[in-house]
């Protein structure tokens, strides 16, 4: 993967490598979270509208932010495509995060349906970011289908377990020539930092920030962690050894 300072998704350039989810939020805190996170991309979900309600989440998201609608609720590729079309119709751009799950206990994504939806939507000009279970073959198929990035899960959504799938995320980073955006299950800034040190292109987090004691401060902590991890990765991390390698010189010791 080419080393660039900017994150490039579907021809669009971003300086932030932190994608913020907006679920479980007090709407009044969204602006502070986005600003402290330095996020330039925010995910939203699409649901039935209620008559007469004046408050709309779009009013709380700062101008200039790229909206990333997800297809949550979709159980099949067909349902995901339907949600993507409706999301695009609202008029916030062509990005879509494909989320296709049938199981509600673990909310694990269905890679097969995700590949189908990616194929359809990429052909229609969407910038497709598929949320997937980290499987190398599925990632290759998603790239071939026209995905702009791959979003492997670290752990089930909302669990704060961290990098449960670390080994398999590393495989994707090493083998797939697309931005790998680690999404779901990251609970701490240190875990986001670790994923960035591994070479991830970006991090997406929602629950860890939305349910924090001090939401804006946690958003800032994640931002700093993601920046630190990226800088460490670009610097070239030291090797891990089995035995010691002295840091101080081994000659010129004082005599008796």
């Amino acid at each position, binding site marked *: 993967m080419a080393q660039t300072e900017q994150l490039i998704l579907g021809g669009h350039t971003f300086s932030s490598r932190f994608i913020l*989810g*907006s*679920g*479980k*939020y007090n*709407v009044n805190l*969204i602006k502070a979270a986005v600003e402290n996170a330095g996020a330039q991309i925010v*995910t*939203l*979900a*699409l*649901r*039935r*509208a209620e*008559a*007469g*309600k*004046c408050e*709309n*989440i*779009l009013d709380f998201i700062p101008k200039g932010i790229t*909206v990333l*609608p*997800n297809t*949550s609720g979709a159980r099949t590729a067909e349902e995901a495509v*339907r949600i993507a*079309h*409706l*999301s695009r*119709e*609202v*008029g*916030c751009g062509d990005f879509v995060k494909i989320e296709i799950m049938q199981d509600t206990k673990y909310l694990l994504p269905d890679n097969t349906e995700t590949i189908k939806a990616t194929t359809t939507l990429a052909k229609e000009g969407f910038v497709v970011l598929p949320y997937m279970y980290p499987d190398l073959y599925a990632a290759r198929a998603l790239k071939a289908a026209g995905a702009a990035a791959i979003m492997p899960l670290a752990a089930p*959504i*909302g669990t704060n377990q961290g990098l449960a799938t670390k080994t398999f995320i590393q495989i994707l980073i090493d083998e797939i020539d697309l931005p790998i955006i680690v999404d*779901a299950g990251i609970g701490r800034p240190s875990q986001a930092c670790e994923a960035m040190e591994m070479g991830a292109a970006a991090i*997406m987090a*929602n*629950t860890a920030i939305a349910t924090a004691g001090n939401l804006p401060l946690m958003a800032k902590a994640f931002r700093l962690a993601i920046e630190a991890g990226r800088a460490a990765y670009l610097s070239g991390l030291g090797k891990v050894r089995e035995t010691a390698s002295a840091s101080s010189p081994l000659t010129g010791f004082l005599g008796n």
Partner: protein
Amino acid sequence: MVSINGKQVAVDGCSLQAYLEQEGFSKEHIAVELNGQIIPRSCYAQVKLKADDKLEIVRFVGGG
């Protein structure tokens, strides 16, 4: 009766635009699907709701 977001509503003959305005929906924040087809905003005034139509009115909410 027209099915609107899963509920049966007696608005047969009403224009889509009139219905949305009457219910306080803000056009810029929603998308509309009628019988499986997306209706562009520019066509709301021309569409008349009829018996057994199935309407879905959607908007963005917080999500991860």
